[in-house]
């Protein structure tokens, strides 16, 4: 029996209970008190997130599986993000696939129909065959599951960094749509309901929640990885939505399996469950195995007695197992029976209130050097070589199913889907581990601002976000400090933009085999609605207009990652992001621009490269870039926020609308294919553009 409870926690259990728990009871407590399920090291600070707003239908505090936001006309979207980092490190195909399945089931738990997925993938350098193996199987796993259940993957991120060598990050976000008055809770409000389980329980994913709450041991932990069965997942999806208005509560059996599902659903009430009634995939599972198995494609329903037959009949149409296994009761004890004997009897209160931890903090020492001596051409080429087309990845995803994908993957900085009420929903996930490892607070603000700009670049305004906080071992003071700083930054920016945080997830213990933590990787996924018109980017001969002000703040940028760290950390001036974004949206609505892209990785050059890869040339004049420095390095490569480039034939139409934001014509798009001309210097990027299109295909084949 592998437990992650500390001796201190075990002592608390003994004291509260007044006896030594049985082996089965220890497993139950271990799952419920795991970091994965209890948020014991993070909850104190997560409470600082602004989670309220007029449009919030269901927020974090409701202790539900996903948040819900009003999108008008009686409809709400359900938004959720989750990672499957640890399973994907061991079995990338099943790890990634079950990550998708888990998100989908969280969404249908609210009675919502899943309509889009995003995947944000971070792996180590692809020069290593292990990392190629990881990436290939992660992408195949996401495709396998997402394609089979008919939910389009409409966007995402793919990033490479040595920090993820042993510990890839596999984040999946999902969006669902539901009638506001049909949202189903995940917890019961009254006892007396029958507990119904659908799906078979097997031997995979044993103790997965506990496994995700410690660092990878390097030993054989394959038993803790769940196996994906998207065909079963599709039946669960279809039928759960069919019966959603006939049940009182729905919960996905995810991390922690049956014990966590039932205890959380009971919501402080009690439950009596007969484990002999749980439909099994293999004979002779022990009661302990049934309790903590995390076999996928299972759901839990709280159902009024008179509705049970109708609910199970819908599943039986597809020969899918459905069984009543017990009842929610008033007495606040969670009790499991096996062969007529009581194997677990624990107070709900004990299970739902693990000790909270606030660990020590310490500021990381950051080394910084001086401005490197590099040439213009050399640095431009080095920067743009980092940008590669993700077509190899997204062409493996069915991004058209549902016939609502308006902007296709790779087409813009945000995904865009049509909702049943005719509105258009934009969605984007953003992280910036390079900046976060320099200053997690500024980075927390920056990623929210970046997501806000990304949505603006297609014409949308953010309405809600979910976050995913991925860090190393929280007991390490430097890791915990970054964690708290990132939360501060995200909370502050969300408050500034008045965008409620409706849900989130925390993933600790992401470290390599030597105990070195990953770069702090908080990630936000923001959803927004198109205000009037949306923009489908088009590159043609036109003026290049830079919106915003460029600052000599180079630390944590792609440039300093390549040439050595120096300079100041970029400060996120949120009001500049707000004003610049609104200017872009207004310019989309009056149709004065044909292309918009926010400036982030690689700075101005990074943004201009997306024009060059469309088969055009670019000419810019450094003197026209408003900046607090005459140095060409920040002008070209600074990643400070609040900036966009847009293409237009009428720059005046943009500048006259500006409210205190620089609008500068810095150059033009030319027919001089592959050539970036900076002042009088012509740089031919043909090789880098070929690399952009071919790199992933070549390295992965």
């Amino acid at each position, binding site marked *: 029996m592998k437990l992650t409870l500390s001796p201190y926690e075990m002592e608390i259990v003994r004291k509260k209970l007044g006896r030594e728990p049985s082996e089965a009871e220890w497993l139950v407590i271990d799952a419920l008190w795991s970091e994965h399920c209890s948020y014991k090291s993070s909850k104190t600070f997560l409470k600082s997130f602004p989670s309220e707003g007029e449009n919030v239908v269901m927020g974090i505090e409701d202790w539900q599986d996903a948040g819900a936001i009003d999108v008008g006309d009686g409809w709400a979207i359900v938004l959720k993000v989750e990672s499957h980092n640890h399973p994907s490190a061991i079995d990338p195909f099943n790890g990634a696939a079950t990550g998708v399945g888990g998100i989908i089931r969280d969404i249908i738990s609210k009675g919502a129909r899943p309509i889009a997925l995003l995947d944000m993938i971070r792996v180590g350098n692809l020069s290593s065959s292990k990392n190629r193996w990881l990436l290939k199987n992660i992408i*195949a796993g996401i*495709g396998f599951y997402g*394609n*089979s*259940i*008919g939910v389009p993957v409409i966007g995402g991120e793919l990033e490479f960094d040595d920090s993820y060598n042993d510990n890839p990050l596999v984040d999946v976000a999902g969006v669902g749509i539901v009638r506001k008055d049909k949202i189903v809770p995940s917890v019961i409000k009254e006892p007396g309901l029958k507990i119904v389980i659908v799906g078979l329980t097997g031997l995979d994913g044993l103790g997965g929640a506990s496994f995700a709450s410690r660092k990878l041991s390097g030993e054989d932990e394959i038993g803790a990885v769940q196996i994906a*069965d*998207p*065909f*079963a997942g*599709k*039946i669960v999806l*279809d039928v759960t939505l069919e019966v959603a208005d006939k049940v009182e509560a729905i919960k996905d059996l995810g991390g922690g399996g049956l014990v966590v599902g039932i205890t959380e659903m009971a919501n402080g009430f009690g439950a009596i469950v007969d484990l002999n009634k749980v439909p099994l995939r293999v004979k002779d599972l022990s009661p302990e195995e049934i309790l903590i198995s995390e076999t996928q494609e299972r759901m839990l329903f709280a159902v009024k007695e008179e509705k049970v037959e109708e609910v199970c009949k819908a599943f039986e*149409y*597809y020969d899918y197992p459905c069984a009543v296994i017990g009842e929610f009761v008033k007495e606040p004890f969670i009790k499991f029976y096996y062969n007529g004997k009581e194997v677990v009897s624990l107070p709900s209160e004990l299970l739902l209130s693990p000790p909270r931890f606030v660990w020590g903090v310490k500021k990381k020492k950051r080394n910084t050097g001086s401005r490197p001596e590099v040439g213009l051409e050399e640095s431009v080429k080095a920067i743009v070589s980092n940008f590669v087309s993700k077509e190899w990845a*997204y*062409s*493996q*995803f*069915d*991004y*058209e*199913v*549902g*016939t*609502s*994908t*308006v902007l*296709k993957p790779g*087409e813009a900085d945000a995904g865009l889907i*049509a909702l049943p009420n005719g509105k258009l929903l934009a969605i984007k996930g953003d992280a910036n581990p390079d900046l976060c490892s320099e200053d997690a607070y500024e980075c927390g603000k920056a990623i929210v601002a970046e997501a806000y700009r990304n949505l603006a670049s297609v014409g949308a305004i953010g309405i809600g976000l979910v976050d995913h906080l991925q860090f190393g071992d929280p007991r390490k003071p430097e890791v915990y400090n970054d964690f708290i700083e990132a939360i501060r930054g995200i909370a502050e920016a969300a408050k500034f933009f008045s965008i409620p945080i409706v849900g989130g997830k925390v993933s600790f213990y992401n470290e390599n085999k030597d105990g070195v933590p990953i770069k702090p990787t908080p990630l936000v996924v923001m959803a927004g609605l198109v205000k009037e018109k949306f923009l*489908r980017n088009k590159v043609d001969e036109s003026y290049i207009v830079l919106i915003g002000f460029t600052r000599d703040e180079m630390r944590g940028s792609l440039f300093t990652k390549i040439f050595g760290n120096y300079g100041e950390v970029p400060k996120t001036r949120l009001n500049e992001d707000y004003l610049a974004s609104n200017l872009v949206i207004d310019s989309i609505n009056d149709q004065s621009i044909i292309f918009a892209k926010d400036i982030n990785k690689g700075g101005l050059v990074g943004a201009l490269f997306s024009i060059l890869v469309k088969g055009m040339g670019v000419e810019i004049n450094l003197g026209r870039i408003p900046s607090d420095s005459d140095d060409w390095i920040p002008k070209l490569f600074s990643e400070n926020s609040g900036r966009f480039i847009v293409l237009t034939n009428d720059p005046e139409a943009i500048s006259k609308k500006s409210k205190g934001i620089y609008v500068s014509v810095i150059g033009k798009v030319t027919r001089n294919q592959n050539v970036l001309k900076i002042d009088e210097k012509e740089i031919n990027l043909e090789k880098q553009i070929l690399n952009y299109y071919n790199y992933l295909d070549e390295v992965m*084949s």
Partner: protein
Amino acid sequence: MKTAVIKFPGTTCEVDVYKALLEAKVDAEIVKFKDFDPDKYEAVVLPGGFSFGDYLRAGSIAASTETMKKVKEMASEGKVVIGICNGFQILVESGLLEGALLPNLNLRFISKWVYIKVVRDDTVLTRGLDKKILRMPIAHAEGRYYHEDVEKAKSLAVFLYSDEFGNVSEKANPNGSLLNIAGIANEEGNVVGMMPHPERASFKLTSPTEETDGLLLFRGLSK
């Protein structure tokens, strides 16, 4: 034509096809696989997805269901049978269409907008569309058409992968299909199978060029 859109367990495109048929003014409804009564319909569409999880081989389990026996009856009565993507795979597995659909040459799932050229106009979908070039997406892992008799395959072909000008070249072949075949029909022309998804090119908003070429095909069912 009163048209049934069949939903097998694992089918994912039934609603998309249904919506596109409505857009093309076709009298259509979605029918669950066990509830299908062939006498009520003049045409049936088997939409895309992963019927029965595509376990064993794409389309093979669905091909041996009672539902497909009824579809075969319809075909033999001369009624219209259309299979899209997984539906095409089911038609091939059930013997309603000749040939086989093998794993793509690159052994990966491919999701992509392609051009196809109409080379037979004696089917209900393609009447009046001979030589027409259409744009729509594909999304499959097993779509490489194969037939041991190349001449036969040529005579069955309805759609060929091409470039935007209608040139049928190896470069325009996304999956290694024999002769660039994207879709075929039986000799009578009443059973048609195709890998590309016309329903995904039936709505202006979600079409990259705002063209709705899929509707040109579906309108054949509206008469």
